[in-house]
């Protein structure tokens, strides 16, 4: 059976353009966190850029970085995961329907409001006519994209696949989230280690990965296995142990566990259970760097892949005091609102 390697990564996040987890400074997460927009002029012609939603631009930038790093020019599939798509343009289009009494609707915002516009516009720029798919499965959207690529690389005649996760912040959606208490409000204490307030520090970003069956000098890590599900059929401990055993691993052979903790007091008990199971294991977190959004777990995968390739474990990622003796196997555990669970297992190449 073929393997699935991460050979290139590109990211647009709330951190400065070109940010590295090994940088000394990080922008502190607030209640709402907008992505730092890079310069798009070198990549996207102004005539095209003027019609592109923020999510499309961020994705094209991140996808380009990932492909360039992997020296991949011919992806045989483009697969994107997004929780809410280009929600800013969806809002514009819906606003226009109301304001103009269902008349004078123009095509641009409508085109951008469809979730699959991101993967489609990347394909247009690359002139890529291969498999093009978009997963919209809440906080498991990115993991479903990863799973699709993983299966195609392992079992079909595919060698190179581009995948990514993207989400945007939009004002009306944010106000709805605020109303139902899904997000942090201004002045809320944001504590990832001991959350005392409900809601997540909402953010946005795009994280793309060039995956291949071929290992290169630039390979970050191998994606060994992943499990995506909505609810536990068994208890958390048994499920994780069974997943690791399937891959000839155990709790003790995981060198670092990366947790998608999101500073929400309501969701924290789930991660606490995982912490208890992995008491002796170095525990890392990343949403204090990326902020929280449906596809933030793609940023988590980026962080895990960078740890494993660099074989170093930056202080700022430490969720507990344990220090890894070696970094060969990393397990990512994510969820959102006590559903959309995922385990992703990475190994050193």
């Amino acid at each position, binding site marked *: 059976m073929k393997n699935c390697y991460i050979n290139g990564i590109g990211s647009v996040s709330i951190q400065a353009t070109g940010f590295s987890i090994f940088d000394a400074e990080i922008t502190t997460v607030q209640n709402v966190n907008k992505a730092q927009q890079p310069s798009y002029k070198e990549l996207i012609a*102004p*005539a095209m*850029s*003027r*019609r592109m939603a923020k999510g499309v631009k961020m994705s094209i930038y991140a996808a380009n970085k990932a492909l360039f790093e992997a020296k991949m020019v011919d992806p045989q599939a483009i697969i994107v995961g997004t929780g809410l798509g280009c929600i800013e343009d969806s809002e514009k289009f819906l606003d226009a329907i109301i304001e*103009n009494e269902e*008349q*004078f*609707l*123009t*095509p*641009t915002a409508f*085109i951008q409001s469809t979730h699959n516009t991101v993967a489609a516009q990347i394909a247009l720029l690359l002139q890529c006519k291969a498999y093009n798919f978009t997963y919209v499965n809440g906080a498991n959207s990115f993991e479903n994209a990863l799973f699709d690529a993983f299966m195609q690389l392992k079992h079909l005649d595919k060698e190179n696949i581009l995948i990514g996760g993207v989400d945007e912040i939009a004002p009306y959606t944010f106000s709805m989230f605020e109303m139902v208490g899904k997000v942090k409000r201004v002045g809320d204490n944001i504590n990832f280690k001991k959350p005392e307030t409900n809601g997540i520090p909402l953010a946005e970003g795009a994280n793309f990965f060039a995956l291949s069956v071929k290992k290169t000098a630039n390979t970050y890590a191998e994606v060994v296995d992943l499990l995506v599900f909505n609810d536990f059929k068994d208890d958390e401990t048994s499920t994780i142990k069974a997943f690791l055993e399937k891959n000839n691993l155990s709790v003790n052979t995981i060198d670092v566990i990366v947790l998608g903790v999101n500073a929400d007091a309501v969701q924290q008990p789930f991660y606490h259970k995982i912490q208890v199971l992995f008491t002796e294991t170095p525990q890392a977190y990343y949403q204090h760097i990326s902020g929280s959004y449906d596809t933030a777990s793609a940023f988590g995968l980026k962080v895990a892949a960078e740890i494993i390739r660099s074989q170093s474990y930056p202080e700022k990622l430490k969720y507990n005091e344990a220090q890894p003796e070696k970094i060969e196997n990393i397990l990512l555990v994510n969820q959102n609102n006590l559903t959309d669970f995922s385990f992703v297992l990475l190994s050193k190449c």
Partner: protein
Amino acid sequence: MEALKKELKERIINVLNLEDITVDDIQDTDALFGDGLGLDSIDALELIVLLDKEYGIKLADPKQGKEIFQSIETMAQYIAQNRTKL
């Protein structure tokens, strides 16, 4: 007429999100499509909606658009003669 042309340029820049282009960059007789501003068929749809929404002009025959949308000059003339909204 000069005020209408300026207003039209501002609206086109805004509606079509013409980044890095100012009112002064668009000459009254510049071609809007092709070699001039480089607008395309989606922009044409946006301009038809703009005429309807802002000036109350419904283009019944799309072929008319070819002449009306030649330049700011031709657009402004058509709007001045046919507008139903002030």
